[in-house]
């Protein structure tokens, strides 16, 4: 499950990926530009630095930049570092496995399906690079908005045109 930490981290990295290669960004700019609490962002960037995704420079002109090209960093790489093993539900992880208090894992169909979901998550996130995420165009974003705006249980005929075109 993507936590707030994971989401903020990705947003910060997209911010850095937009800058010309090598240019540093002030933490404050990244925080205000993406609505991320500054303290939280400091911690997140520290972890990303330990894992080798960003570099920092101290001092007045200091700041952060990507440690390597945005097309070499996969979204899945980042999410594992910030949020731990990819898993839609804690009982569907091997190393961070947490038993659910209220069910028997051997017979739990939900967990079984979630194991499949875990594979799907890894497949998507390990294919997509930061560069691809950065370049998701506004068109795609408006489609996403249109999907979000779909009336719940609406008639199929009511689908906005944009969604049909996209398919």
């Amino acid at each position, binding site marked *: 499950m993507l936590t707030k930490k994971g989401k903020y981290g990705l947003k910060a990295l997209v911010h850095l990926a937009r800058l010309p290669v090598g240019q540093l960004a002030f933490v404050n700019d990244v925080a205000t530009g993406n609505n991320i609490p500054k303290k939280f962002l400091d911690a997140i960037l520290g972890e990303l630095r330990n894992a080798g995704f960003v570099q920092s420079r101290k001092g007045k002109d200091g700041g952060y930049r990507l440690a390597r090209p945005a097309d*070499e960093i996969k979204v899945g790489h980042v999410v*594992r570092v910030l949020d731990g093993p990819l*898993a839609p539900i804690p009982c569907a992880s*091997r190393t961070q496995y947490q038993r659910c208090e209220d069910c028997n894992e051997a017979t739990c169909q939900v967990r079984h399906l979630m194991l499949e979901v875990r594979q799907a998550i890894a497949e998507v996130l390990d294919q997509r690079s930061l560069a691809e995420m950065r370049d998701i165009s506004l068109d795609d974003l408006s489609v996403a908005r249109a999907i979000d705006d779909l009336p719940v249980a609406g008639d199929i005929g009511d689908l906005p045109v944009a969604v049909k075109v996209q398919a």
Partner: protein
Amino acid sequence: MTGRANSIIIVGGGASGVVLAAHLLKSPNPDLRVTLIERRPHFGQGIAYSTLLSAHVLNVSAAGMSAYADDPGNFWRWLQERGLATAEQAPFYAPRSIYARYLGELLDELQAREKQSGRLRLIREESLSITPTASGVEVALANGTSVVAHLAVLATGHDEEPAQGHAIRMGSEADTALPPDAGVMVLGTGLSMVDAFLALEQRGHRGDIIAVSRRGLLPSPHRKGNPIKLDVADIPLGTQLSYFVGWFRDLIKENQKAGIDWRDVVDGLRPFNQKIWQNWPASAKRRFVEHTKAWWDIHRHRMAPEVYARVTEAVRSGRIRLVAGRVVDIARNGEFTVQVQSRHTQRLETFEVARIYDCSGIVRDISTSSNSVVRSLVDRGLARPDPLRIGLDVSAKCEIIAGDGTVSAKILAVGPLTRGTFFEIDAIPDIRVQCARLSKQLLG
């Protein structure tokens, strides 16, 4: 090239070449033509399986050594059918000469089966070069003839360059009889050093053996176990090396707390090693090769328990002395006077030895390869070393990459030559998977 590649030349008939031929010939395609070229008198041996010494056993148990990716029990069954091992002996570490026999028989059977169809052709000759042509490739042979096909796969394996300087290779012509009490030095403390020790014992040698390497570490022994189950979702990919190593150490610690042996953790990671390698940034790969690989190798590439027992007994009794350090000087005065600088104390120590064996197994820069085919591809810009110079640069589909970055559709490579891209590709369990995949890619 349009359509399917029906004719394929495999250059190099060691284990990889034979395993690839076997997978290709699973295809029902009647027009398929596979030509296997090997310069040694026997196919399926290479350097790994040409030893006749019964003490030289496989370092992977029989259950892991099948030639077929989709039939992992093939070798283990073969052994039992011939009465060479019984089920109770598992995990069984067969002599490597027996493995050569297995691959030899496998090839004989393929030859017999394909006699009518003419789909398999074996050539005992050295190959000198591969040249792309309009319709495919032409492979020149040392006897002045050449063979053509739609494409060629390099399976030339390990470089067999003669040792440099005063050191010689075990079993080479320079390896003449020694007085039984002569002191010898072995450069390297890994599996090749162990091979050398076993060969010396067999010859009745009793003198001291000084084994020197940077860290002076002996490989670990195998132990019966069950690899832990991991998932790609658990493994940090694409991070800096230190981050990954930290994660891995923690994983081992946690498992040890639960009473699980570190070997089961190392082996649990194995299915993901290629993926981990491929996702690392170039800097992590370089650091790994320079600093971590030696440590990794002694944990990952282990030896049969009986062999380990013999070696550690020899170390305990003082027959073998392991030295962590660097050879700084070798002077010749009939014998050799070797100065070694200790890794820990920096002090120099002097050894008098009658012979120096090169068992360092250092991977040499491929652009200075002694192999004519590899060398000529690199010299003509048709191939290039991978960024770390531990093999040839190949794509994830095994296609070789030219000096200018062009991916070749006609020349491919398998086995240890591709370690820059696949990393975990030295041993049969990985080679057979690569060959199965490549066969599918080429023949559908």
